[in-house]
C-alpha cells in the first residue's frame, strides 16, 4: 500500500475530493496546514511596520491506497488540483507497511 501525501490549494479541495471519489478512493485525511514554498514571500504592513508573510494556507491530503491504485490517484490529484499557477502543490508517495480498520479489524488492502 502507498500513503499519498498531497498539498493543494484550499479552494481546490472539493474538486479534488470529487475527482478522487470518481476513481474509487473511499477515504482520506484532510489537514489544514501552512505551506512554505516558492509561492510565498510577499510583505504586508501592520500598523506601519512591514513584515514578511512566509506561509500560505494549504490543505494537506493523506490517502492510503493499494499499490495498484497509487499512480491513478496521483494523476487524479495532479489533474484536479492544477491551476498552472505557482503554489499548486506537491504530491509525495510513501510505502505503507500495514493498515487496519478499527471497526472490523480488517487489515491491509481490505482496511482501505
Amino acid at each position, binding site marked *: 500500500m502507498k500513503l499519498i501525501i498531497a498539498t493543494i490549494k484550499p479552494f481546490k479541495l472539493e474538486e479534488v475530493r470529487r475527482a478522487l471519489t470518481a476513481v474509487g478512493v473511499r477515504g482520506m485525511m484532510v489537514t489544514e496546514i501552512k505551506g512554505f514554498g516558492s509561492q510565498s514571500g510577499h510583505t504586508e504592513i501592520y*500598523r506601519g*511596520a512591514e513584515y514578511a508573510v512566509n506561509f500560505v494556507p494549504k490543505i494537506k491530503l493523506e490517502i492510503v491506497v493499494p499499490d495498484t491504485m497509487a499512480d491513478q490517484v496521483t494523476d487524479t490529484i495532479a489533474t484536479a488540483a492544477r491551476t498552472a499557477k505557482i503554489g499548486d502543490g506537491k504530491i509525495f508517495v510513501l510505502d505503507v507497511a500495514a493498515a487496519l480498520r478499527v471497526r472490523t479489524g480488517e487489515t491491509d488492502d481490505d482496511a482501505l
Partner: protein
Amino acid sequence: MKNQIRTAGVATALCALALPALAQDAAPDTTPPMADIGYIFTTFMFLVAGFLVFWMAAGFTMLEAGLVRQKNTTMQLMKNVALFSFAAVLYYLVGYNLMYPGDGNWIVEGWIGAFSLAALEPVGLADTATDLTYASVGSDFFFQLMFCATTASIVSGTLAERIKLWPFLFFVIVLTGVIYPIQASWKWGGGYLDAQLGFLDFAGSTVVHSVGGWAALAGALILGPRLGKYKDGRVHPMPGANLPLATLGTFILWLGWFGFNGGSQLYMDTAGNVADISRIFANTNTAAAGGAITALILTQLLYGKPDLTMVLNGALAGLVSITAEPLMPTLGSATLIGAVGGAIVVFAVPFLDRLRIDDVVGAIPVHLFCGIWGTLAVLATNPDATVTGQVLSIVIVGAFVFVCSAALWLALRAVTGIRVSEEDEITGLDVAELGMESYPEFSKG
C-alpha cells in the same frame, strides 16, 4: 418593583419632609414640585451618561482582547474586569472626596483634597435640605467614577502581554485612588489649574485621557517592549488575534463617548443646556468619523492598503481630540479636529515603534498625543482658552502623572518585579499566569 403601595408611600413621605416647595394640593398627585424638575433632568442625564461611560469599560476590554495575541487574551480580559472593579471601590474609599473636597475641606487648598469615604444622600433625600440646583450626589458619584476607571483602562492596553497581574492591579489601585483624583481636583474639583490658570478641559482630553496615556508611557518605558518586538533593528508586528472583537470594542467606546462628553455638560435643566448636550453629541460623532476617515485615507495613501486597526484607532483619536472642547466647535471644525487626531495616530504609531516604545493597542498615540492635541485645539474654538492655561496645564499634569507613575513602576519593579519571566511571556500569560486559555478547545469533536 411594581409595588406601588410601599414604594410610593415611602418616597412621597420622605419627599414631603424634604421638599415642601410648590406642593400640589390633590392628595395622591405625584406631579413633581417645580423646583425638582431641573434636578430630576440633570440627575437622570447623569445616570444615562454614566451607564454609557460604564459601557466604555466593556469597550476597552473588547478592543484590547482583540488586539493582543491569543495567548494573552484571558489575561487581558481578567485585567480589565479587575481594574474596573478596583477603580470602583477605590474611588469610593478615597478618590471621590480627594477629587471633589468641596469648599473648605481641602487638605491643601486647591492642591490636595480630602481623605474620606464617599457618602450618598440619604434615601429619599430624607431630612436633608438638598441643593436642587445641580444633581444628586449619587448620580454625580456614579458618573465621575466611570471617568476614573477609564483612566486605568487606558494603561492596561499599552502594557498588555508582558506585565504581571498583581503589580498591574496595585498600580491601578494607586492610580485610581490617588494619582487620578489629585490631579483631577486641580481642574474639576476647582483647584488651582481651574482657579488660577483658567485651564479649560471640558470632558477630559488632559484630565482623563492624557493622564492614562502618561501612566501608560511611564509603564511602557520601564517595562520594556515585548520579547521579539524589536529585533535585529527591525519592528516585528504582532497582529491582534481577533479583529471583530477590536471593532466591537471601538463601537462600544464610540457609543460610550456620547455619555462621556455629553454628560460633562453637567446640567440638563434648561433648553440651553439640553441644546448644548445635543451639540456635543453631534460634534463627538463627527469627530470620530473625521478621525476614522483620515486614518483610512492616510493608510491607503501611505501603505497602499487601508489598515483596519489604524482606522479603529483613528475613530478613537477623533473622540479623544474633541473631548477637551466638544461644545464650542461647529460640526465642520469638530470634523477637522477629529481628522487631525486621526492623522496623529497614523504617524505616531510607527514613530513610537521607532523609539522602541511598545504600545500594544496604540493607547499612547490615541490617548496621550491626541489628548494633548485636543487640549490645544481648545485655543482655536473657545475664546476663553489661553495659551498659558492650556500649555502649562498640559505640562503640569503630565509631569505630575509621569513622575508619580514612573516612581511607582520603579518601586514595583524593585519590590515584586513587574514583568513575567521570558519563558512565561513566550508561553503566553493565559497558560503561564492563569492556567486558562481564552479559546481552549483543540478539537471540535
